[in-house]
């Protein structure tokens, strides 16, 4: 038997030499493959820790050096890394943002503005049986940074891979039989057109050690696209929850088990026992599938959900809450080195079940960056702050969005306060006075007041709006350039406004326990509206702006609360307050 196989192998190779010319279609396919490998290889990154430890793979996605990899690669390599490209050169790189739940990290390579970037494809268009390329740095073989290419087929789609605890969960991922080995982590999965369709992160390695068994998994690029602007914000980003458990019933239908009364879904009418029909536009046939769909969206996004109760079907929009508590995510964010917890690149808890492993090299433990060795010009690119992987990149994104706002985000007409006056749609006159000590509102002769000051809380004023006056105050702080007075101000990322509208940038202002989400059109800086929440368990005060603008401020405010339109106001005049009358 052994001899016969040996003979076969010998004959195979000899056979190749004497074989007739293969058919043209085969040669064409080979040429196309070779051309594809040549085209995609320059964008593939070999990632190493600064001290040579850790490491994995990544892929450049922009000419200014942003690259995707796995969170479990950067958690091993530290905040600064060395990245090799197939031009044989080694570049410095710095951490930007991380998604510990989805096992994705964004890093930025430095030193060029013309990096060879890969094109992102559409992972939803993949078909089982389609050829895919895994390109990366398995076993850290690429001493000259020329990546290793392996080739195989899509084995399955919409796979779910259980998390380690609640992190490193692979939802709706791509399964392939292409060879995947330690060190391939974070590298790209390309389709035949040379587009990135996934980021390779884990495999099933049961029984055969940590080497390929033909079952590798990639995070779909469509999931990563949802998170990309969130990652560019430099934050530790979180996935979402609807605040309810979902179960598959005996009859095969999918239903809500228990639901938090504090959840947005509950306030929208969803109750225990309701049958889920579709979620995020996809029909739901199992609890597992629901988890699969949910897992590809960031916390804070609004998604359509259709449920059935009895004979009636209801369509609602649900805003996702955080999947994790703030304290759980804080463990991943960077605290300044002089603080208590100086552990750069904390490693997540290892998977209890050893058969599903992240293919990182075994020496990952020794990879913590020695911050002392980092040159000072690099160090300036890392700003550590709780809740952020690298706050420096949030400052950059804040600046970009603010730059697009009227007068660069410093409206002089609002600086010392202002009075906005006009009429509602049904003809009532109104005056809103935005001052430092309070926000007053006179609507058709009835007065409302939100007092401001260290001891004052945000209240639901006018009652039933969810806190319109408090929201107007936070909006003024953003637009007038008084952002330093807020408890927190940052760039969140982007989302489709109202779940169905255009993709908009989101700025967050927090103060006095309240939180304002301001929606800004990506090109041109037009303000589309805001959602304001006085706390976690109440509905938002929702304001959407119309097109007209007066002195940089939107003139048409459509106010709704709990899904009900309650006010449609048109600002006709804006007068600055005289500083002497309202100085502090």
């Amino acid at each position, binding site marked *: 038997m052994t001899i016969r196989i040996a003979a076969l192998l010998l004959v195979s190779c000899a056979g190749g030499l004497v074989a007739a010319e*293969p058919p043209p279609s085969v040669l064409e396919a080979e040429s196309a493959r070779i051309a594809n490998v040549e085209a995609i290889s320059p964008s593939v990154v070999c990632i190493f820790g600064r001290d040579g430890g850790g490491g994995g793979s990544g892929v450049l996605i922009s000419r200014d050096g942003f690259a995707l990899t796995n969170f479990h690669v950067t958690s091993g390599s530290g905040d600064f890394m060395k990245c090799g490209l197939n031009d044989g050169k080694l570049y410095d790189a710095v951490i930007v943002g991380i998604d510990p739940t989805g096992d994705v990290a964004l890093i930025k390579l430095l030193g060029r503005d013309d990096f060879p970037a890969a094109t992102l494809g559409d992972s939803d268009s993949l078909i089982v049986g389609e050829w895919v390329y895994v390109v990366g740095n398995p076993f850290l073989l690429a001493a000259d940074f020329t990546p290793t290419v392996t080739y195989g087929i899509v084995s399955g789609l919409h796979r779910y891979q259980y998390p380690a605890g609640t992190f490193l969960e692979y939802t709706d991922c791509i399964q392939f039989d292409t060879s995947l080995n330690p060190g391939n982590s974070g590298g790209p999965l390309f389709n035949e057109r040379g587009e990135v369709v996934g980021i390779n992160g884990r495999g099933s390695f049961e029984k055969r050690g940590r080497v390929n068994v033909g079952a590798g998994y990639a995070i779909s690029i469509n999931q990563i696209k949802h998170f990309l602007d969130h990652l560019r914000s430099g934050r530790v980003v979180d996935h979402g929850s609807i605040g309810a458990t979902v179960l598959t019933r005996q009859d095969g239908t999918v239903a809500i088990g228990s639901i938090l009364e504090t959840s947005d879904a509950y306030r929208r009418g969803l109750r225990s026992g309701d049958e889920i029909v579709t979620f995020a536009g996809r029909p739901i046939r199992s609890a597992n599938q629901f988890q699969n769909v949910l897992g590809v969206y960031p916390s804070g996004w609004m998604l359509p959900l259709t449920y059935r109760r009895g004979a009636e079907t209801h369509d609602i929009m649900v805003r996702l809450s955080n999947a994790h508590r703030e304290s759980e995510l804080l463990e991943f964010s960077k605290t300044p080195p002089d603080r208590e917890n100086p552990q750069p690149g904390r490693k997540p808890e290892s998977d209890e079940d050893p058969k599903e492993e992240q293919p990182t090299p075994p020496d990952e433990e020794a990879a913590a960056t020695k911050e002392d060795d980092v040159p000072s010009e690099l160090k300036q690119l890392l700003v550590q702050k709780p809740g952020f992987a690298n706050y420096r990149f949030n400052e950059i994104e804040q600046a970009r969005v603010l730059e697009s706002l009227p007068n660069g985000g410093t409206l002089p007409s609002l600086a010392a306060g202002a009075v906005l006056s006009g009429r509602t749609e049904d003809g009532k006159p109104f005056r809103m006075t935005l001052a430092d000590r309070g926000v007053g509102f006179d609507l058709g002769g009835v007065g409302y007041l939100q007092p401001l000051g260290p001891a004052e809380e945000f209240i639901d004023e006018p009652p039933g709006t969810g806190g319109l006056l408090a929201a107007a105050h936070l909006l003024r702080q953003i637009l007038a350039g008084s952002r330093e007075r807020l408890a927190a101000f940052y760039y969140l990322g982007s989302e489709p406004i109202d779940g169905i509208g255009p993709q908009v940038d989101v700025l967050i202002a927090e103060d006095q326990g309240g939180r304002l989400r301001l929606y800004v059109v990506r090109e041109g800086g037009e303000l589309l509206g805001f959602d304001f929440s006085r706390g976690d368990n109440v509905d938002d005060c929702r304001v959407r702006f119309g097109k007209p603008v007066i002195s940089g401020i939107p003139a048409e405010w459509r106010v709704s609360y709990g899904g009900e339109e309650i006010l449609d106001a048109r600002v006709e005049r804006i007068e600055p307050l005289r500083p002497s009358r309202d100085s502090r």
Partner: protein
Amino acid sequence: MRLILQVLLLAAVTACLPHVSHAAENDSQATLAEALPKLVKLYGAGGFRGLEGYGTGFLASPDGHVVTSWGPLLDADRPVAVLGDGRRVEAKLVGADSASGLAVLKLDGPGAPFPHFDLAEAVDLAPGDRIFALSNMFRVAAGDEPVSVMHGMILAKAPLSARRGRFETSLDAPVYFLDSVTNNPGAAGGVIISLDGRIGGMIGRELRGESTETWINYAVPATVIAERIGLVIAGDEIAKPNPADADAPDNARRPIEVGLVMIPDVTARTPAFVSDVLDDSVAISAGFKRDDLILFGNGAPIRSIRELTTLLSRAERGDEIAVIVRRDGGLVTLTFLIP
């Protein structure tokens, strides 16, 4: 001999051809879309170390006959089959053929006619032929999506000489050896198909080669099992293999071999009490004492001496066994290596 050489040469020429063209790829995707609904995911008994409670089967008749590899998951009263469209259906054991290691189940529910492989059109594969392997490996198709697909090639068609744990296995017909890792946990009962979608063989249970001890990737030719499947479906008497056969005393590694003298094994449920420990044995080095009651082995409950024997027999030489014993009212963990 000359004939064999010719076959080999032909195969080698085919083997050295690069991948199929793009047009062929589109055909392949259509082939897979048609073939995948003919596979079912099976869930049954098992679920502890080394014994997966899941497997694969393929539909072999419009009436809902499902062929799978004989295995412990069929110990369940009613294994559950998940069809290609996500429907869950209970299945009933029709019969089995011990020689080829296959079992036939019948889906218990409406849905006929089912999409199925036509065994009359089974393709005889040769070294160098390209194949797709379809299986529920690693139970990764956890929702209502189809099973996994791998691509590969027939390396050889040759007799199987392999073992599982200590148990030798042999089929009386040559099997296909494959170049990709098709025989993963849960893959047994899956199929290999030709690029035009005809069934070529059934993926067998996980086995190690007898001489190298490496896991081997193989499939039993469909042309070999087609007739047997037909006989089982027709209800002709074919001996149903007793799953306990695998644990028959002839092949078993008994506790005495590691130095454990158990109390007399009088019933199927005799608790695993240690009656004595042999001097100079693995067991005495590990710290076993007389009157220890073995409760767990490698994380799985040990409810009887027979289960202990099964655990020991399934282990490979050099494998670590960790057992928890009850001693003087407390629990003690002891570990040893299989000699």
